[in-house]
């Protein structure tokens, strides 16, 4: 993926939500390129499994337990990663979930707060924890997971989630512009429905209607998202920052 062969060799990615789905796929694609991967997840057993697999696939893995909704845990995870590998070049704030599907009038305070804590505050804490390190090192790339739902609105099933991802898109723009002079890029990705455990909360009807809205006629594979994450981190992509990259199979951006 990079412009320079071996660009990713021994560079380090800090990855949240590493134990499954898009996070897991990203860990393996960075492993393929010989990178170090800090596999952070609230599911430590899953993180260990992925980290072990990273080692098998040509990278170096480190599993860390991390609840991104707790600032102290995020700071500790970043510090442990830096201590282990000496540096963090890339951060992928991928941990996220719609928690459950819900019609707008059924969204209670608990669901709303959980969705925002995980999807917005988690990204906020991740970036605040890693930016001082990137500033000290003179650069870095941050990729945040937004969602096509940020323009679709999630009506009928996940406005709590879609609006939280809208906040991620906007936070990404602000951070990118604030730190652009310090050689730090910050971008978000907006996938359409991807075929991961994220969809365990989706009914068959919902999955079918989401798929029908995608011109390519299927959900995204997590690897397809992960390859874009790697491209965005690479030296082939120095002029993209602040924006969100839609990985939508051609659907849904009106």
């Amino acid at each position, binding site marked *: *993926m*990079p*412009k320079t062969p071996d660009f990713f060799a021994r560079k380090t990615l800090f990855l949240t939500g590493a134990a499954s789905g898009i996070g897991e796929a990203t860990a393996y694609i960075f492993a393929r390129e010989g990178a170090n991967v800090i596999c952070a997840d609230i599911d430590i057993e899953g993180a260990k499994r992925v980290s072990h697999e990273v080692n098998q696939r040509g990278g170096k893995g480190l599993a860390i337990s991390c609840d991104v909704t707790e600032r102290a845990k995020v700071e500790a995870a970043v510090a442990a990663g830096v201590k282990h590998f000496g540096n963090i070049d890339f951060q992928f704030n991928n941990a996220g979930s719609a928690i459950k599907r819900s019609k707008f009038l059924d969204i209670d305070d608990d669901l709303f707060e959980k969705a925002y804590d995980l999807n917005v505050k988690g990204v906020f804490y991740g970036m605040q924890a890693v930016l001082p390190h990137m500033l000290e090192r003179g650069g870095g790339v941050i990729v945040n997971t937004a969602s096509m739902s940020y323009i679709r609105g999630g009506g009928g099933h996940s406005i709590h989630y879609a609006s939280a991802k809208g906040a991620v898109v906007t936070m990404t*723009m602000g951070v*990118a*512009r604030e730190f*652009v*002079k310090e050689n730090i890029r910050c971008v978000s990705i907006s*996938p*359409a429905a991807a075929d991961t455990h994220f969809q365990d909360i989706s009914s068959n009807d919902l999955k079918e209607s989401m798929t029908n809205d995608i*011109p*390519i*006629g299927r959900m*995204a*594979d997590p*690897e*397809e*998202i992960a*390859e*874009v994450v*790697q*491209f965005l981190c690479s030296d*082939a*992509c*120095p*002029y*993209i*920052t*602040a*924006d969100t*990259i*839609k*990985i*939508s*199979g*051609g*659907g849904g*951006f009106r």
Partner: protein
Amino acid sequence: MPKTPNYFKNKTIFITGAASGIGKSTAMIFAREGSNVVATDIDEKGASVIADQVVQAGGNGVGVHCDVTDRNSVEKAVSLGLERFGKINFLFNSAGSAIKRAKFLEIDEDLWDQTYNLNVKGTFLCMQVVIPHMLSEGKGVIVNMASNATRTGGAAKSPHYASAKGAVHTLTIGVGREFASRGVRCLSLSPSAVDTPFQDISSKEMLDASIEGNPMKRMGTPDEIAEMVLFTCSDACEFINADTLYLTGGSKA
């Protein structure tokens, strides 16, 4: 850039506007990956020079004359490319220009027509000629040049060009969706100002303002756009379709 090593080796890209700027950079980056490059341009000599450089850089190249505003010329160039390499896997419609800078009330019909013929009809014609071939192969990727001007509107310097690029953006969405289920992806790139001969028509004040207004305080380089063309054509990018990708250094427009 691809997911599979050597993915681009012996695959063929048809590039319009290949003699300079982003088209030229793209030819050289595909050459690096061992591709066949059909380098087309209205400047036939320029196209041949690039084709030679492609060969020196490790690819196979052929320089072909092509006036993208003329259907016959496009059909001939595509036939020559197919004759030479047997297939066209990727089409990059890079030929384009703002022709000259003009405020809205100064745009005459000649400038308007030239701009739309080159930027919109050129893209339309090349896609119409190449797509039947891609459909018969069951696979293909088309990359069109839109512009960040679709968001700024080209106010006071090139609304003729900005609006033509808006048409390219929308044409891309339509084509991307019409052919998605048949293996052909189509997407567009929207850069802010890029440091190429395109800017020969821009005053120093205009360029200074554009650099000053950019968060990265510089223009894009043609290589940066070309690397994105390569990525979007690759097997690492199979779920991005119909959309436009912004390469703007974080520009606020």
